[in-house]
């Protein structure tokens, strides 16, 4: 185990949220790999029943049990758990009442279906409860079982309600077992052991949702984490070239010469090709300009930011390790 400083030392529950399409599950998986690097043990949890972890790691669907799914760079293990609310409820019955078998019998009657689907917030409490239990769990020597837990959480629009559900339940159930259970959850979720990270793209809507999400977290008294800017393109052109291109000024005479030199086209063909390519450059420059603006907007939120490269071949296992490496280099893990 190495002992370098990271931005989130002391955080043991990393909640990862983001607008749909920003690559939330990918970043959660890469973060889990990064946290496990160098001999640690990390649990990656998903709660929405989409089997996103299995897809990313190219595995068959995960059952409701913690199993090792990947080895991190330099040793270290990533375990995964796909939380199923009904199973989480059986755990809960077992934990508090030692009545798993009776619970199984009642499943047939649909009671559990009733309670998990229906009772407001109860489902979320069970899911967050299962996650925080893993955060708190100790082995028989009193050591923490997991060095960190990464939760692939619901999207930005729902995150505060999801984590704060304990509050909603508390409003509903003033006493009783749910109340106690949700108090336990709240003890972890609102502590400095937790950080809620946002995944965004350098686009207007995801950035706006990130800022809104941060505000909501702050209001609810939940601990904000970092902002992971996903799918960042490497700069291809010097800034002055882009500045000119945004205004529609681009040296296509030089481009024609270059295309001819490369043997791609000659004469009027080269000119036509240069024109079409110039269109691409101008579009690229406009987009880069928008991205710069969005980056400035994010800076105003004054949260630590991390940039993850766009993977040329899409997300595969090798790509995940690349992202994990990038997360480590930037000090997020």
């Amino acid at each position, binding site marked *: 185990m190495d002992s370098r400083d990271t931005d989130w030392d002391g955080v043991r529950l990393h909640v990862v949220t983001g607008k749909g399409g920003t690559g939330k599950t990918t970043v959660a998986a890469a973060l889990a790999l990064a946290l496990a690097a160098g001999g640690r043990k990390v649990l990656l949890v998903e709660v929405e029943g989409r089997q996103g972890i299995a897809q990313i790691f190219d595995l068959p669907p995960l059952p409701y049990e913690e199993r090792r799914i990947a080895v991190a760079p330099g040793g270290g293990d990533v375990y995964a758990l796909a939380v199923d609310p009904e199973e989480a409820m059986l755990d809960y019955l077992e934990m508090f009442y030692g009545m798993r078998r009776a619970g199984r019998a009642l499943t047939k009657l*649909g009671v559990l279906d009733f*309670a998990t689907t229906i009772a407001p917030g109860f489902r979320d409490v069970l899911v967050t409860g299962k996650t925080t239990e893993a955060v708190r769990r100790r082995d028989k020597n009193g050591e923490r079982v997991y060095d960190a837990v990464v939760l692939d959480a619901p*999207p930005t629009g729902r995150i505060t309600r999801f984590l704060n559900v304990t509050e909603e339940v508390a409003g509903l159930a*003033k006493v009783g077992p749910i109340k106690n259970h949700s108090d336990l959850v709240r003890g972890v979720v609102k502590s400095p052991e937790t950080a809620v990270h946002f995944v965004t793209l350098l686009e207007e809507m995801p950035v706006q949702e990130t800022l809104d999400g941060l505000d909501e977290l702050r209001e609810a008294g939940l601990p904000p984490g970092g902002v992971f800017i996903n799918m960042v393109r490497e700069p291809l*052109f010097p800034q002055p070239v882009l500045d000119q291109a945004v205004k529609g000024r681009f040296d296509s005479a030089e481009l024609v010469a*270059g295309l001819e030199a490369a043997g791609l086209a000659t004469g009027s063909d080269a000119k036509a090709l240069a024109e*079409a*390519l110039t269109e691409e450059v101008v579009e*690229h420059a406009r987009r880069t300009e928008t991205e710069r603006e969005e980056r400035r907007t994010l800076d105003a939120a004054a949260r630590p930011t991390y940039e993850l490269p766009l993977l040329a071949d899409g997300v595969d296992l090798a790509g995940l390790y690349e992202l994990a490496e990038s997360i480590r280099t930037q000090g997020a893990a």
Partner: protein
Amino acid sequence: MKKPAGLDIDAILDDSGTRIIVCCGSGGVGKTTTAAALGLRAAERGRSAVVLTVDPARRLAQAMGLTELDNTPRRIVEYESGGELHAMMLDMKRTFDEIIEAHADPERARQILSNPFYQSLSSSFAGTQEYMAMEKLGQLRRSDEWDLIIVDTPPSRSALDFLDAPERLGRFLDGRFIRLLTAPAKAGGRSAFRLFNAGFGLVAGMLTKLLGAQVIKDLQTFVSALDAVFGGFRQRAERTYQLLQSPGTAFLVVAAPERDAMREASYFVERLAEERMPLAGLVVNRVHESPAATLSGVRSAAAAEDLQARGEHELTAAVLRLHTGKMQLAAREHREQDHFVTAHPTVPIAQVPAMSEDVHDLDGLRRIGELLAKA
């Protein structure tokens, strides 16, 4: 890329038999934008259209001039042809409240509205939003004020949620357990025991353990009040289901040319077929096409490398690398769409090119509408 059938958007919008268009698909694929653009185009073409949107992005709402969340349709534009566009944002709690207020006497309505269980259910129960969107759709349709309703489905983890959630909520409010819970209150606590024998004691005991006695009591009060006001939540859900199955409805599945979104679109197409719901086609948003597609990615990459090795025309080499990336992206997007076309060769598809900026105003929406129709 394989050639799918083209989706003729204008034919759908111009057909006066089309009364409802449902835009569905996974989160983040541009459903709301598509719905708004369709509404505007329909209005331009003389339809009296209303767009029902659920939780839209702030900017998009502003683009349509929607600033208030007041649960009633507001006029956005009006054309000389008689076409007009209205739009509204769904306020699910208000919609729920209105159902209660419309069906209960004031005293009972007050009882229900102030019940803590109701407050939770109406504002946070997963599925309420979907249910209320469908409820509102039914209301708009019954009012017959518009000849075309375009509805944008709630942002949920999966596109299928919106089909299942209303049924789930309906089943809950109308279900066996609710009956079980309310039965003792109605029949002096005897009948349930006769019916369920030891079973009920076990069930009630278990629920009390799980949820606590106060929750059960609130729930019982709530349910019996609600039950007296109107049974048949499930019936309402079923009516909406039938409405969606009727020939006047057209489902548009919206996707982006990415693996997850296309896979979700595939599931949804299959599910619609299973439910016998009329699918009009697939809209693929944010498709990247190169204006210089004659130059392949491979040739472009090789030429860039060559120029770099020779140490000349640095700028051209950079342009060629940019182009290579674009062509690779386009190729990947084609592959994702090919999978879909192979599995569903008869589903018409419309592609909308990616724009460099988000939509900010009606002109932006109009442009998207044009692109949709041209596809």
